[in-house]
């Protein structure tokens, strides 16, 4: 089998699974459905492994598989660009996806939408692979929208819940804002480069570095800055950067495997991947890089703060995802693209692990998500407990777990950077280390340590949304509430263990290759003046000295302090948090309400725009556009139509006469001239 | 030059003579019992002098169309027969195929009952 066929097989086997199960899932039954989907993704995973090996051997591929159509110089094609960046993403995506597929067998066992769910996640895997394997902007956009579509479908998977529908709509709207920027960016590229092909565009980019886009208002914009910022706005939507982050916490309404796969490990990192892929463009615009840095730093810091006060176990992890995405974005901003991708990879492993672990807890507690109603679970769920520890240590950045390496590399890259806003970014990423450790261990301690608070919470159901979930969750009514939680079945624990392994070792094992070993080669471009990463490479002496160096650095001690604080507040003195909360009422209210961003959005955007919209709708749309242009032209067409219809009299001599007139008209014109 | 037309003259004379002999034999030998129907001029089964815009029996058309059809097709046989020595076996089979198609049509109309008046 040629490599080209292998690429196709990798992309298409999840699609085949999705189609078969989507169309005939009900007839095939549950077992056959999940086997088909798992097989499809397993084939992709194994294939991706081969591709990675092939890429490591120095091979690359860039070509069109199928040209849909060409218009002038613009070509609409399906093509693959297989290089180290793609291969790495392929392995990460298919691995996490495979784990989630297996996990779903256990997690969704009682759900009536079982086969539909499998069809969706296989479809997602296909779309994500198309996105990362694209060699042109059109396919990138297709994958971009397709993963978005599946994401919406899955957030609203339990479509009978009003909250799920609300979250669904919110995700849709926030992503539309981002996609607008993205489309604008692609449009500018087509307009000025005349091509949708990565290679062509990247090749022509330096020549257009000085082109200026006159947008009127006397303030000309450098073209590439405009393109990069527009593209990054797309990334902000997909990767949930401030202020378009609002949809991600709400997306936790979807089933937990989805939170792990789509809203933590893969889809939300599409923005990061896209910016890294576009590095030849971003490197030519310092303005855009500064913008990226500032947005990333803001996201990292402010979202981490929110993580500290959440009581829903999934929301804690969701805010941590936002914060970690901020890290990756900062890394992109300071031109440390390999560091961003490296963090993307390690994060995918440990964040999927944490989500799946949280899901395991949620299942064990019959869909209880409130941390205040957990505690002491370590005795009942040893495997989940142990693997959650691995995930937490990796997220907090304790050596030698994976997160330490990728996070420290980013912090160091920020220190060495000189891009605009790097001072702010440096403060933010350092402070976040403390916060990360704090909220991670807060969650861990609340869930697994301390006194057991589950099982006698029936009376507290009234004010809490968990009650609603408990009762509306299809298929769970038969469970007796309050029974002692049990460890989850093997289909759930095996993926946890398999994800814990890379969370443990992938940092020190791969930092050498990925970050400093010129792994990415030509797939990522870094301009000479943005040499932070190059400096780090010169000072690089291997993983062990890196740990030693890290142990002396501020971030490590901040992380340790965070863990200690968590221990103090939630194990040693569990009475303290309530007191602190009482003292800092205003701050707490600010945080628990997500800085009132949602309310602001509802008030200004939803409310204000609705009012403006109503105005435009009444005056502009209904009377002028609709009344005059649309209905007017429709009426005109309708009237013409009715008139012309009369010509069709039904009399054969009228018809013959028309034909003769036609002949005469043509004769007069062509013979007579 | 003129003697070249002698066969034509002969043909005309023989033709007229033959016609006269036949008519004379007919009137002499056959029984002669005239009635109004027999004496009226014959024109395709219709009254000779009346309004032209009248109803025709549709079966008449069927027969007439079929007649014209076969009549016209048979007309092709004459030129064919004249040049048959020159177009040879190829020409022969061409006409056979032509007639075969014609026969297909004939069988069809026969079997469909188009030739039966009632």
């Amino acid at each position, binding site marked *: 089998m040629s490599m080209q066929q292998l690429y196709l097989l990798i992309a298409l086997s999840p699609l085949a699974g999705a189609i078969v199960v989507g169309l005939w899932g009900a007839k095939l039954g549950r077992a056959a459905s999940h086997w088909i989907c798992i097989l499809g993704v397993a084939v992709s995973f194994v294939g991706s492994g081969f591709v990675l090996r092939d890429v490591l051997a120095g091979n690359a591929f860039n070509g069109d598989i199928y040209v*849909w*159509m060409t218009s002038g110089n613009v070509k609409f094609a399906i093509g693959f660009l297989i290089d180290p960046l793609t291969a790495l993403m392929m392995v990460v995506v298919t691995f996490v996806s495979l784990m989630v597929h297996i996990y779903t067998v256990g997690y969704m066992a009682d759900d009536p939408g079982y086969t539909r769910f499998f069809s969706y996640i296989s479809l997602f895997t296909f779309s994500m692979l198309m996105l990362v394997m694209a060699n042109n902007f059109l396919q990138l956009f297709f994958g971009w929208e397709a993963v978005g579509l599946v994401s919406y479908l899955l957030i609203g998977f339990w479509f009978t819940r009003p909250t799920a529908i609300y979250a669904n709509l919110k995700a849709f709207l926030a992503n539309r804002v981002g996609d607008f920027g993205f489309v604008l960016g692609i449009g500018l590229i087509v307009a000025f480069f005349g091509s949708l092909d990565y290679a062509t565009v990247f090749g022509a980019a330096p020549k257009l570095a000085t082109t200026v886009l006159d947008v009127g208002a006397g303030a000309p914009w450098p073209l590439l800055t405009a393109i990069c910022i527009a593209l990054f706005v797309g990334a902000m939507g997909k990767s949930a950067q401030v202020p378009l982050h609002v949809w991600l916490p709400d997306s936790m309404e979807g089933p937990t495997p989805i939170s792990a796969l789509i809203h933590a490990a893969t889809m939300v990192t599409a923005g990061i991947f896209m910016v890294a892929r576009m590095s030849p463009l971003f490197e030519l615009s310092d303005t855009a890089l500064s913008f990226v840095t500032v947005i990333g730093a803001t996201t990292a810091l402010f979202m981490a703060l929110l993580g500290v006060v959440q009581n829903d176990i999934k929301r804690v992890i969701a805010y941590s995802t936002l914060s970690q995405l901020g890290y990756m974005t900062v890394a992109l901003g300071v031109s440390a693209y390999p560091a961003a991708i490296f963090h993307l990879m390690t994060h995918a492993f440990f964040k999927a692990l944490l989500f799946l672990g949280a899901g395991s807890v949620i299942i064990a507690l019959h869909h209880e998500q409130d941390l205040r109603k957990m505690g002491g679970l370590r005795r009942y769920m040893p495997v989940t407990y142990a693997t959650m520890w691995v995930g937490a240590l990796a997220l907090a950045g304790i050596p030698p777990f994976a997160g330490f390496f990728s996070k420290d590399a980013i912090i160091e890259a920020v220190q060495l950077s000189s891009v605009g806003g790097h001072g702010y970014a440096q403060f933010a990423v350092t402070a976040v280390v403390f916060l990360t450790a704090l909220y991670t261990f807060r969650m861990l301690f609340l869930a697994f340590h301390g006194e057991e608070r589950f099982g006698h919470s029936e009376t507290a159901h009234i004010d809490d949304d968990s009650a609603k979930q408990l009762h509306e969750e299809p298929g769970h009514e038969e469970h007796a509430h309050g029974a002692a939680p049990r460890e989850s079945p093997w289909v759930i624990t095996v993926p946890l263990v398999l994800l814990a392994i890379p969370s443990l070792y992938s940092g020190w094992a791969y930092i050498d290759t990925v970050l400093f070993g010129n792994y990415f080669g030509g797939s990522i471009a870094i301009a000479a003046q943005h040499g932070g990463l190059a400096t780090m490479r010169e000072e690089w002496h291997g993983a062990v000295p890196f740990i030693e160096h890290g142990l002396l650095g501020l971030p490590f001690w901040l992380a340790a302090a965070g863990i200690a604080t968590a221990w103090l507040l939630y194990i040693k003195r569990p009475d303290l948090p309530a007191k602190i909360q009482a003292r800092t009422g205003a701050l707490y209210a600010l945080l628990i309400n997500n800085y009132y961003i949602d309310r602001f959005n509802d008030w200004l955007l939803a409310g204000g725009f609705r009012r403006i919209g109503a105005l435009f709708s009444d005056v502009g749309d209904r009377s002028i556009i609709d009344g005059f242009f649309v209905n007017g032209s429709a009426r005109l067409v309708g009237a013409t*139509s009715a008139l012309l219809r009369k010509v069709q009299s039904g009399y054969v001599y*009228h018809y*013959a006469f028309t034909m003769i007139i036609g002949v005469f008209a043509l*004769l007069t014109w062509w013979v007579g001239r | 030059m003129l003697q070249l037309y002698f066969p034509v003259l002969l043909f005309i004379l023989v033709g007229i003579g033959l016609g006269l002999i036949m008519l004379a034999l007919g009137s002499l030998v056959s029984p002669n019992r005239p009635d109004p129907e027999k004496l009226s001029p014959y024109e395709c089964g219709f009254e000779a002098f009346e309004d032209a815009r009248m109803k025709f029996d549709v079966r008449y058309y069927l027969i007439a169309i079929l007649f014209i059809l076969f009549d016209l097709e048979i007309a092709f046989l004459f030129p064919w027969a004249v040049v048959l020595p020159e*177009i040879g076996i190829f020409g022969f089979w061409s006409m056979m195929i032509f007639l075969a198609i014609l026969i297909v049509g004939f069988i069809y109309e026969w*079997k469909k009952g188009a030739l039966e008046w009632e």
Partner: protein
Amino acid sequence: MPSVATLAFDYVPALPEIVLLVSACAVLMIDLFVPEPRRHVSYWLTLLSVAATASAILYVFHNTPVRTFGNMFVADAFGDVLNFLTCLTVILMLVYSRGYLAARGLFRGETFVLAMFALLGMMVMISANHFLTLYLGLELMSLSLYALVALHRESGTAVEAAMKYFVLGALASGLLLYGMSMIYGATGTLEINRVTTIIFGGHANRTILIFGLVFVVSAIAFKLGAVPYHMWVPDVYQGAPTAITLFIGTAPEFAAFAFMTRMLVGSLAAVAFDWQGMLIVLSLLSMIVGNVIAISQSNVKRMLAYSAIANMGFMLMGFLAANVNGYSAAMFYVVTYVMSSLAGFGLVLLLSRAGFEAENLDDFKGLNQRSPWYAFLMLLAMFSLAGVPPTVGFYAKFAVIEAAVDVGLVWLAVVAVLASLIGAFYYVRIVKLMYFDDPVDKAPLAARSDMQVLLSLNGLSLLFFGIFPQQLMGMCVVALTRSY
């Protein structure tokens, strides 16, 4: 005087036509002896004959043009591709219309045999290399079609439609013969490929030639149903039994396209500048008039008739570019238009049953509730006719518009886009009725399984070729470049 030796022709290039003629005669004979309850024997024999013809086309497929019967007949890639597609269309038409015909007492040997003779006429037209062969094929096709339209004798509208079709068709034939004789007068030959050489050689009287051209173009426009020669189309489409409408609306489009290509490209390429202008007028009028009038139709068959007129306008827009790109775009357009309208009419047939014609827009209301799959197929057909991506109709419209833009006719392309916007309205209206309205008629939909399978494949092919149009387009380009 040709010698005897040259009269022994090469029959192999005409093998498909011969197979069809022999089997049509055979079916006619066999049907006479088939008792009424076993009418399906004739039906299956007809399908078998057309399938055998299609296989014969593949068997003799010509990569380089072969001329035979004293240069009256040509077999080339262009003809073979179109012949094959025509056969395929007839097979689909027979399968789709079986239930409809049976419910109306039209499931008779005559229907099948007339369809086969019409097909033979089309194939002769497609393979013509001589004006008279072309005319012969045209008449064989037309006469069979007139008879097919009138087949439903009890239906007044059908007989009326047949009369109109016949009278106007006779007029068009007259125009064609007149035009052909003018061209003969100007060039002294009736052989299609020799006309070209003579005109290029400068031995033709230009005025007479253009005079003939106008008449020939008029006749072509009549067959295609281009404005202002379109008046027969709505009346015939509406009046004929739907199964016959399906036939008239599909297979003859291939023949008409071949007719146009053989005449204008094969023999009159030298005056391309003149016919280009005429086709611009026809194309422009067809696109506008077709789409605009279609809006005010409440009868689906009539609406599809105007849609046919408009679509032929689009096809002409590609053709009038007068280069290989344009011709292949037009050919692609015809192929995809036939595919789409087969699916569309197929669904109209499916919704009809004994004593009930599903020909009003309201009959499509709530189809999604009655059968989501058929509603989806109809949606594909409508989207394809409207040119909505990712159906094949989009690519077809795109290709013809691009061909027009390439030769500098940007204004025409703009009109085309506006016209297709207007057109989108009435196609999407059907989609709206199917998905957002409640059904008026709740009778269950029944179809034979062979029809279900073929109709589904037909509908899905609209999607498939929309995503993968290159092979189909490649086929059109190859067929044309290997023949012209």
